[in-house]
């Protein structure tokens, strides 16, 4: 029983390691996100002016930035595979669920890096004040997990479509409405202070359930995209 699981895990890890090594070599996604996030937050600052923003607006803006950055950055995670004709090679050596798990892990870490950059930039430029650090971290962690789960599957879909450009946001955003609502609420409670954990328990439950359902459904459905 243990042997197949260890082999599966090793396969998934190999996919993840390959992506990570490629990323470390050319820093394509990381470099782009590192530019996109501060630039968009700077634009918010210019557009909103000097007026201090309420925690609700700050939480909403933070998630909008994360969502847009992720939908731009993750759209390429399977397209590059098709461009370099490595998809066939990967298909021969790894099962679909391994590929999904490896890609998911890589995308999740990419989104986490993006989150850290976004939060730090917002603290610096928009005076984001965090009352509950732990709550903010868990909201971002759970929200990013659901986001990565959905975006990884849809990125694989789009890699097969003919027009790859702006399709990911169109497909992704309607599905992520419940995630955005819950994540923004939990983030707002984390910024506002008071009884943050109690007030956002429901939102955190929704985020956890959403991530679980999205990843389970994506794992089941990924088979149909990966193996023609």
């Amino acid at each position, binding site marked *: 029983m243990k042997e197949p699981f260890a082999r599966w895990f090793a396969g998934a890890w190999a996919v993840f390691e390959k992506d990570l090594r490629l990323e470390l070599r050319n820093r394509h996604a990381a470099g782009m996100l590192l530019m996109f996030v501060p630039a968009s937050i700077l634009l918010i600052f210019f557009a909103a002016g*000097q*007026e*201090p923003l*309420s*925690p*609700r607006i700050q939480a909403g803006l933070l998630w909008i930035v994360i969502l847009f950055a992720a939908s731009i950055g993750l759209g390429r995670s399977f397209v590059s595979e098709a461009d370099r004709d490595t998809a066939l090679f990967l298909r021969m050596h790894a099962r679909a669920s391994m590929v999904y798990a490896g890609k998911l892990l890589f995308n999740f870490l990419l989104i986490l890096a993006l989150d850290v950059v976004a939060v730090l930039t917002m603290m610096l430029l928009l005076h984001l004040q965090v009352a509950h650090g732990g709550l903010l971290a868990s909201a971002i962690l759970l929200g990013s997990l659901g986001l990565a789960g959905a975006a990884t599957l849809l990125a694989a879909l789009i890699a097969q479509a003919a027009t790859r450009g702006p399709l990911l946001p169109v497909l992704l955003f309607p599905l992520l409405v419940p995630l955005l609502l819950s994540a923004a*609420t939990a983030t707002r409670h984390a910024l*506002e202070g008071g009884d943050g954990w109690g007030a956002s328990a429901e939102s955190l439950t929704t985020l956890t359930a959403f991530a679980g359902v999205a990843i389970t459904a994506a794992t089941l459905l990924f088979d149909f995209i990966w193996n023609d």
Partner: protein
Amino acid sequence: MTIHPIQEADTTNAAPYDTIWTSQEVPVQPPDALERTMLAQDKLYVVLAVVLIIWIGLAAFVLRTDRKIDRLERKLDASISQETSPE
């Protein structure tokens, strides 16, 4: 140039997506012409509008299906005339 002091809005007790109808002082405008028409007859015209929207929408849907049939017929005619012509 005058610098206006910033007014901090009190948002501690507000619900997300503040709804206009829950606040106590709703600015009620005098009914305009549209409202006077629609509210007559115990608002029966609202029901009429709703039924008309559904009727027009369903009719438009049927017309679209019809157009699909038309296109198919034209295609069929064109293919048949192509096949029967000697060239």
